[in-house]
Each structure stands twice: as structure tokens, then as C-alpha cells.
């Protein structure tokens, strides 16, 4: 037994490293548009490769070796949005993103969200952290004003010009409003999830920002982080989750799922 371990421990380490990579890739690509394509392609290639190895089919092996280069390029094109997210997450490590707003401005923001929720006014916020949101801010109107419930409720009042976009919060100030956020292409089964929620998921897929949403339809408060939507949270729940994320970032514990449909954007 000891001899076998001594001889093959390197193989074990290699398999473990590969398993971690495969599992991380699964976590990144699950529930994306390309996930099914990737699964199908992977199964086909793996099956073909295994059969050709076991039966020593030289032509199939040769063919697989030749197309693997083209396949790598095709995968980069196919998964461009996901790869962008991976790179954005690499740069959004806790060490690089300590740009957290003060607790007072968070209270103001949450109070404004509750007021908007009571009036059934839709709203979308992106709290800037490590990654610069300047490109997104340029799609809207620069505001650069201190957070206040009055200002926020005015911006998102349905009769105003800036209500139909997202507001970017940077260090306790509203940097811009009326911004256009990228819309997520993830599969979401819940039909109640509209464009505002998808935009919140989109901005958090491409950056390390935290997005907060007030639903126009139901007044539900939601939070999006790393492309995942935590839908219909109680105000206190939202405050705790926001504090967790702002304190621990990516290392924050996953939300406890009471019912499978609450966390959307994942399988």
C-alpha cells in the first residue's frame, strides 16, 4: 500500500488539481447561455477521445488532435462574456477592493429603497467597489451628490428623466444616474424577473459591484452580486447581506436557501 502511494502520489496530486479546475469552471459556467453547448461538446469530445484511446483508433485520435486548436479559439469566442467575468473577479479580490461606503450612507440608501418600495417605484443601484465603473457612468448623467432619501426618491420618480436607468454609488455619493447597465444573458426561469433585474445581474457579472434593485411591479427588494440574484429580501435581511458582502467580499458566505427559487441565476 505504502509503495503504491509512494509511486503514484504525483498522479493523485495531478488529478486533484484537475478536479479543482473542472469544478471551478463548472461554477463559473453554470446557468450561462453557453453551459449546455459546453456540456454537449465536452461529452462528445470526451467520449470520442476515450473510445479512440481504448480501441486505438488512430484516425479519430489524429482528427481530435488537429481540431483541438480550432476548438480552443471557438471556445474563447463562445464564452467571451464568461471569460471577462473570470478576469474581472480575479481583479476583484478583497485585497484590491476595499472601497466600501460608510455605514451612514448605507442607512440612507436602505431607507430610500424602502420608501421607493412602498411607492412601487422601480430603482437600480450599483455600489462601486474595486473595479472602475467610469465606462458605465458615462452612459448616464453625472450627478456627484451626497446620498439622501429625497434625492434618490426624486431620481427614481417615474415622471423624471433619469428614473429609467441605474444609479452608481461611489464612496457614499451618487456618482451618476440614468446609466445603462449590460443586460445578463443568463437563463432565468422566473418570469417576474424583468430587465431591471437582468441589468443588475449583468453589471455584477462584469464587475465586482453590488447591485440593489427595487421592483416596480411588487416593490420587492433584491440584491445581485457576482451575477447571482437574491430576490425578495426583507429590509433587515438585505442590510445584513450587504454588510457581509462589503466586509468579506467574495469570501462572504453564500445565502442560506430556504426555497430553491429565491436565488436566481444559478442552476
Amino acid at each position, binding site marked *: 500500500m505504502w509503495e503504491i502511494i509512494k509511486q503514484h502520489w504525483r*498522479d493523485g496530486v*495531478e*488529478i*486533484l488539481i*484537475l*478536479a*479543482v*479546475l*473542472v*469544478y471551478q469552471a*463548472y461554477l463559473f459556467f453554470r446557468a450561462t447561455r453557453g453551459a449546455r453547448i459546453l456540456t454537449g461538446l*465536452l461529452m462528445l469530445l*470526451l467520449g470520442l*477521445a*476515450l473510445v479512440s*484511446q481504448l480501441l486505438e483508433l488512430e484516425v479519430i485520435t489524429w482528427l481530435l488532435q488537429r481540431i483541438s486548436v480550432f476548438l480552443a479559439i471557438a471556445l474563447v469566442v463562445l464564452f467571451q462574456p464568461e471569460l471577462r467575468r473570470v478576469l474581472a473577479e480575479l481583479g476583484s479580490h478583497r485585497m484590491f477592493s476595499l472601497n466600501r461606503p460608510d455605514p451612514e450612507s448605507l442607512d440612507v440608501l436602505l431607507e430610500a429603497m424602502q420608501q421607493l418600495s412602498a411607492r412601487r417605484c422601480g430603482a437600480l443601484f450599483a455600489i462601486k467597489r474595486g473595479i472602475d465603473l467610469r465606462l458605465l457612468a458615462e452612459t448616464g448623467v453625472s450627478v456627484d451628490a451626497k446620498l439622501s432619501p429625497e434625492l434618490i426618491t426624486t431620481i427614481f420618480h417615474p415622471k423624471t428623466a433619469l428614473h429609467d436607468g441605474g444609479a452608481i454609488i461611489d464612496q457614499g455619493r451618487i456618482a451618476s444616474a440614468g446609466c445603462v447597465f449590460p443586460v445578463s444573458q443568463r437563463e432565468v426561469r422566473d418570469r417576474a424577473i424583468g430587465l431591471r433585474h437582468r441589468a443588475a445581474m449583468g453589471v455584477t457579472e462584469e464587475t465586482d459591484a453590488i447591485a440593489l434593485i427595487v421592483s416596480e411591479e411588487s416593490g420587492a427588494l433584491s440584491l445581485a452580486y457576482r451575477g447571482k440574484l437574491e430576490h425578495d429580501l426583507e429590509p433587515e435581511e438585505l442590510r445584513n447581506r450587504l454588510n457581509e458582502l462589503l466586509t468579506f467580499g467574495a469570501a462572504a458566505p453564500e445565502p442560506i436557501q430556504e426555497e430553491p427559487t429565491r436565488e436566481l441565476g444559478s442552476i
Partner: protein
Amino acid sequence: MNWDQFKNLCIRNWREKLMALLLAFLFWFMIKSQIGAGSRTYPPLPPLRAV
């Protein structure tokens, strides 16, 4: 990391983790056999006979 956290880490998504391990083994096996085939030594060819 305490024992509970470690246990939770192992139990959460266990099906996916098992699948990842299986896939990793298949990848490893395929690559290993490719490397083995590449470095295989063949016996020398017999001498040519003059016609």
C-alpha cells in the same frame, strides 16, 4: 477552518464535486495515455533485402 466548516465544504454540491473528480480522472487518463503513446519506443526495422 474548523471541522464543521470543512464538513460543510465537502457536503455542499457533492454530486458536482464527484462529477468534477471523475472528469478530472478521465482528462488525466487521456493525457497520460497520449504522453505514453508519444514516448513509446518501437523495435528497429528489419534490414532491407536487396532485390
